[in-house]
């Protein structure tokens, strides 16, 4: 891959970056409320976002720099196994449909802004609130780091090295988020998602025709996997459980993050969320096709030092440079959006590690919507076991979020996030049943 400065691509990139920056400052005036001093207005856009804005805002979460860069990179390297992102982003929406309108109603009725607020309101425990809030912050950090990985790959392809371009971008964006609150990322999400849509549609429509069709793309990938002796177009039998638990665990984790919850809380009704659950799979279809860019990398015969370069290298090789610049701008803006959203060796393992963490807030956040049986001490104990137990297992497995399990003759690997969540719920239930027997009053 060339990393020389490419003037045309860079000019297009700068144009769109400036466009987005101007929009960020315009956002201060968009749907302007009487005051931004109220946290509801600044952080949640006044809970007024309808179907379209919510669609762009929430859907955009799955089209970050990380998705566009790392998912194809994983598929490029390991094949079918990396495709778990597709079932993950399908089964997440029925979950959103069933659970998130209830959570939204709770936050609306009581004026909550964060997951910590919800948990404190439900269980009256500062300890549990702290656990949930801190987990949210910790789990978001690797996520932000991932966006930087994606953005660095895009900037590198443009010939921009070092931290200075990155730093300038962040200062500008932090400034207008400070002045406009969630309105800034919501407005930018329109531009960025439309750009990404154009890029993805162009990529999946044009690249295969340049490479001799999808049949040829799959055949080339198969040949490449056999030549290097690892990776495959289908799953190995011992990967089944890992594939399914990764999809399930990621789906349950996806809407526990502070930035995704913000998108939910900012919508204007439970109905908006339900309708979005039916409309958001449109993103998933493109994500699935995007993952196949990894195979197209093989078909194009790319020779890469770093699998994360597969998408930028494909665009550079097969697209005219003005369109490559457009694509990189879309990717880089996607990365920035995540940073904005939050006022505050394989990239994928990092993502799955923070999935292990954030999943441990699931019982505290979701169970209270359905039952009053759980009490704070049980949930704190469960969180403690899940969070630290899960982290320990990830550590033991050499920072891989997968745990090998052998039952009798069969052995398989399981996503540690799911194991830790099961342990979490089990401990919470056991501790809680002891507490309720002694008729423990609600902690306050």
């Amino acid at each position, binding site marked *: 891959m060339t990393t020389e400065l490419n003037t045309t691509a860079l000019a297009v990139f700068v144009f769109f970056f400036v466009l987005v920056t101007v929009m960020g400052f315009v956002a201060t005036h968009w749907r302007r409320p009487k005051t931004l001093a109220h946290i509801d207005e600044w952080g949640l856009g006044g809970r007024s976002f309808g179907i379209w804005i919510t669609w762009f805002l929430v859907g955009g979460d799955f089209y970050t720099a990380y998705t566009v860069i790392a998912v194809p990179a994983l598929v490029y390297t390991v094949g079918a196994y990396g495709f778990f992102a597709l079932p993950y982003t399908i*089964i997440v929406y029925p979950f959103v449909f069933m659970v998130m309108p209830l959570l939204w109603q709770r936050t609306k009725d009581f004026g909550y802004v964060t997951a910590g607020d919800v948990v404190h309101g439900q269980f009256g425990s500062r300890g549990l609130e702290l656990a949930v809030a801190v987990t949210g912050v910790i789990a978001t950090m690797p996520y932000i780091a991932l966006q930087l990985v994606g953005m660095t790959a895009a900037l590198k392809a443009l010939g921009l090295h070092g931290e200075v371009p990155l730093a300038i971008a962040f200062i500008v964006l932090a400034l207008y988020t400070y002045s406009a609150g969630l309105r800034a990322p919501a407005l930018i999400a329109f531009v960025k998602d439309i750009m990404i849509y154009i890029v993805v549609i162009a990529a999946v429509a044009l690249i295969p025709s340049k490479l001799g069709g*999808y049949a040829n793309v799959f055949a080339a990938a198969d040949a490449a996997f056999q030549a290097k002796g690892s990776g495959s177009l289908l799953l190995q039998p011992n990967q089944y459980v890992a594939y399914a638990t990764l999809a399930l665990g990621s789906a349950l984790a996806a809407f526990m993050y502070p930035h995704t919850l913000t998108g939910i809380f900012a919508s204007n009704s439970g109905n908006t969320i339900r309708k979005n659950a039916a409309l958001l799979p449109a993103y998933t279809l493109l994500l699935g096709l995007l993952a196949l860019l990894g195979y197209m990398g093989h078909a194009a015969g790319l020779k890469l030092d770093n699998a994360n370069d597969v998408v930028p290298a494909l665009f550079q090789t097969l697209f005219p440079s003005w369109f490559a610049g457009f694509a990189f701008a879309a990717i880089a803006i996607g990365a920035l959006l995540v940073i904005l959203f939050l006022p505050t060796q394989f990239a994928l393992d990092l993502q799955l590690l923070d999935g292990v963490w954030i999943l441990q807030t699931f019982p505290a956040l979701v169970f209270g919507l359905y039952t009053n049986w759980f009490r704070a001490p049980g949930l704190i104990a469960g969180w403690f076991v899940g969070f630290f137990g899960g982290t320990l297992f990830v550590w033991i497995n050499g920072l891989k979020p997968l745990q090998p399990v052998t039952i009798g003759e069969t052995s398989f690997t399981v996503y540690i996030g799911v194991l830790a969540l099961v342990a979490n719920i089990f401990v919470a239930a056991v501790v809680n049943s002891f507490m309720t027997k002694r008729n423990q009053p609600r902690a306050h």
Partner: protein
Amino acid sequence: MDKRFGTAACWLLIIPYIGLLWVPFYNFHDPVLFGFPFFYWYQLAWVPVTAFLTWIAYRSMRNDD
């Protein structure tokens, strides 16, 4: 609309979980469709199917708000 029907329609949303999380259903190469091995087009096909099921569930409980 009848509330019980709304609840029943929500059970439809279990179907994608079964169809996608039981990997032996679809870990095959054949039949190939438009150049895509079965493993790939089967999972992609679940996107419109799931959206449709969600839409049915949505229609059935729209008046609950």
